[in-house]
């Protein structure tokens, strides 16, 4: 079985720039954890440190209970002894080998007998749906097929851990969706710990058991996709995980679980969250949580704002609205149809309006 991955106090510097700043996290066996963040946040470097392709300055990394890096004990295990399966962003399929030999390579390097090589390789190829491709030259494959060969190669020797470096970013959108589901299914079937690096929020939300949102070498927030989406810690996390609206309100009343304040257009707003003292606060509401209704003149109350539809895009299942409310523009997804230029009432529940830590507060 095994214990998955343990990372403690990882630090990686490049010159005077700190790429990874004291990162720690654990991944249980069978768990898929996404490292999500913008470019330069350190997620790929963290992955490569686990694989052994980068040498951290400080920290401790354990795979399956075995330390593979320990800066205090001056221990580094070479990448070819870590038993990690890695899928590269460029797939890195070897052009001079056939599909079969590409996938069989890890077994050949381990001096497995030919019968074993045959069985295991064909099984891995079947798992990714490429059993008929064994004699094809690697150069004759499409992007999606290359990607599947890369995955087959990473799993053929039953690694202790799977590492994915933005494996879908070079595929077109439709192929991406299909392959996403495949990767998830495979990882579940193999029941290995997996680290998945991506900058795409949809991938992270749909694939991960847990998401680690990273920025500037640090983990901003860790949690399940639902937690991250519904209760982001701050504006950065909120923005990274999905489209969102921000409102700056002046809070005058603090309750047990909610606060009350006034929005820039004068509307009364109740938001979920904690504050220490009344003052300015930033709240967020997801566009899909805003209810749009034509302004009939007689709605009111808290969490209801009035504005004009500045732009409307039809997306098939719903409309995407840009509504000007006072000085702010709110994005809303709604099936309700209102013409551009029309007056609308935008309302939301207090539980959908989250207080974020403002820059001054944190």
């Amino acid at each position: 079985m095994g214990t998955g991955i343990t990372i403690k106090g990882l630090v990686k510097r490049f010159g005077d720039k700190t790429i990874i700043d004291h990162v720690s996290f654990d991944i249980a066996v069978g768990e898929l954890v996404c490292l999500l963040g913008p470019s330069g946040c350190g997620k790929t470097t963290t992955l490569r440190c686990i694989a052994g392709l980068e040498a951290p300055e400080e920290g401790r990394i354990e795979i399956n209970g075995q330390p593979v890096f320990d800066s205090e004990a001056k221990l580094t295990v070479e990448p070819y002894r870590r038993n990690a399966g890695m899928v590269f962003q460029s797939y890195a399929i070897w052009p001079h080998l056939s599909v079969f030999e590409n996938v069989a390579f890890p077994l050949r390097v381990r001096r497995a007998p030919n019968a074993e090589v045959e069985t295991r390789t064909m099984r891995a190829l079947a798992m990714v749906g490429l059993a008929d491709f064994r004699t094809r030259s690697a150069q004759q494959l499409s992007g999606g097929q290359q990607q599947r060969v890369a995955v087959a190669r990473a799993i053929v020797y039953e690694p202790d851990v799977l590492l994915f470096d933005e494996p879908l970013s070079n595929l077109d959108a439709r192929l991406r969706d299909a392959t996403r589901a495949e990767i998830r299914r495979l990882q579940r079937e193999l029941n290995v710990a997996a680290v998945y690096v991506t900058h795409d929020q949809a991938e992270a939300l749909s694939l991960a058991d847990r998401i680690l949102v990273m920025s500037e070498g640090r983990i901003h927030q860790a949690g399940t996709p639902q937690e991250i989406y519904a209760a982001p810690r701050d504006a950065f996390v909120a923005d990274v995980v999905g489209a969102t609206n921000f409102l700056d309100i002046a809070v005058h009343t603090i309750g047990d679980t909610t606060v009350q304040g006034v929005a820039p257009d004068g509307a009364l707003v109740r938001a979920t969250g904690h504050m220490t003292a009344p003052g300015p606060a930033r709240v967020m509401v997801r566009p899909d949580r805003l209810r749009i209704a034509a302004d009939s003149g007689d709605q009111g109350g808290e969490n209801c704002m009035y504005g004009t539809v500045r732009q409307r895009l039809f997306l098939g299942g719903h409309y995407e609205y840009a509504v000007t409310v006072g000085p702010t523009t709110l994005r809303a997804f709604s099936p309700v149809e209102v013409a551009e230029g029309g007056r609308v009432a935008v309302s939301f529940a207090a539980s959908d309006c989250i207080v974020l830590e403002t820059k001054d507060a944190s």
Partner: protein
Amino acid sequence: MSASDTAVDLRPPARGSSATAIRAIFIATFTITAFLIVTPLAALLYGSFRTGGPGTNATYTLSNWQGLLEPSILDTLLTTLFISVATSLFSSAFGGAMAWLTYRTDFRFKRALVAAIGLSFFFPGFILAMAWVILGSPGGVLNGFLSGVLGIDSEPFDIYSVGGIIWIQVLHITPFAFFTLRGPLSSMDASLEEAAYASGANPWQVARRVTMPLMIFPLMSSLLLCFVLSVEQFAVPAMVGIPGHVNTLATELYLLISFSPPNTGLAAAVGLAMSAVTGLSIFVQRRVVHRRNAPTVTGKGYRLHMLQLGRSRGLAEVLCLLYALLSFIIPSIALLYTSAIKFFVANPFEAAWTWRNYNQIWESPGTIRSLVNTLIVAGGGAVLGLALGTLIAYSTHRLKPRGFRALDVLASLPFGIPGIVIGLGFLWSYVWLPIYGTLWVLVFCYVARFLPYATETVGAQIVQLDRALEEAAWTSGASRIASFRRIMLPLLRPALQSGYFLLFIAYFREIAAAALIYTSKTEVLSISIWSFFENANWGVASALSVVTTVITVSLMVAMTRAPLKL
């Protein structure tokens, strides 16, 4: 994947190379490279401060360096500069013009022209010089033609002159300029010229006002390269300049050594001075190449507008044909002719035809040994040179251990050092090395001289390979050495193949580096041809030249046709 069929241990192999083995290989590579390149340079530096040669009773002195300022040496320096500047200007002009004709106009015989330029590129320089001596010396074919057919007895052609040296060098070096300039010319951004056409400029104006200025940096690069190639040239000034009492630095160096008593100290100073000139030029050229500020490379794939030459096209075609004739067709005919006659006469109708010269090659043990030596040095030496070049390229582009930048600099030094100077350096080193008088000193000298060819050829391919290809091998369980063997080497095969051919051809026909370090037992073909020539045995010299050229050209054809399968 159940536990029951885990008959094989799927954990990664416990054995395998460690970081120390890699470090050891790097240190070995570094040491060998340093030995090959620093030894001759250090020896020269040492020798330039000595009053006498290695092994003599000599003391330290500054007189060699002061000797550089002697009028005769300064004179030689000026002559060299004059010749090289003229050569570089003409070669770049002709090479650039032919590249422009090929890639930017509606010239009709493009493939033939490129093939012809390729053939002149591979035609060995000293053989070209020989052929032109046969053609252009007093008593040679051209003067004989004038006298016998046109009745002009004044013998106006004299190849033994500054003009003769420039003539032959330009013919020989123009292909280098062509290959340097064709890249930038053919990858220019078409829209820059199209904008000029749209503004109303005619094609010649566009060529002058838009194309030319954009090509300033490539042109500068070409000028510098041709300049260096000309300064380095030994064979042409040796065959053509010495009889005409025209000295360049290269031949001056040679004469200082071959006269009795040899002035090895002054030769060392001259050699270092030469290297300073060529080294500085190469250094500047590299800076220029990196500063290509013209927006030349375009990703858009618009086809470049081909200029219509109109009435000038015929003239251009004739001129290019003339180049091909002068650079290898007529010289080849002259050599074939001379190799097949008993005594040299300018008039073929008076000649006595014979196979004797060719027979003499096979019957002479000295010549056979020379041929064998050349094959050993070229065939075996190229393997060593390629292996070393590959190790260096892999270290500097991939491994990047501590000290790799120093290795990179070391390995690129030979670019700026003339062949004859490296030869002199190895001559000076023999005191410490017991290899003098063996083929090994030739092999070492050649490997050092042409090391950049190997490192650049292999390096260019390594850089193109995705780093992840090797990283995927490592994460799959292959050690660094196993992944180099299973992944890197197979993917490098095209570069290794062309690198080997390149080195073989270069070693095969090298004369400058060998001129000072050969002995009677270690003579190589280039030296043999030269000896026969100097001894007025034009017949055998030509026959040997024909054999050498056939081998070189066949290899060139094999190299360009070799299937580059992975």
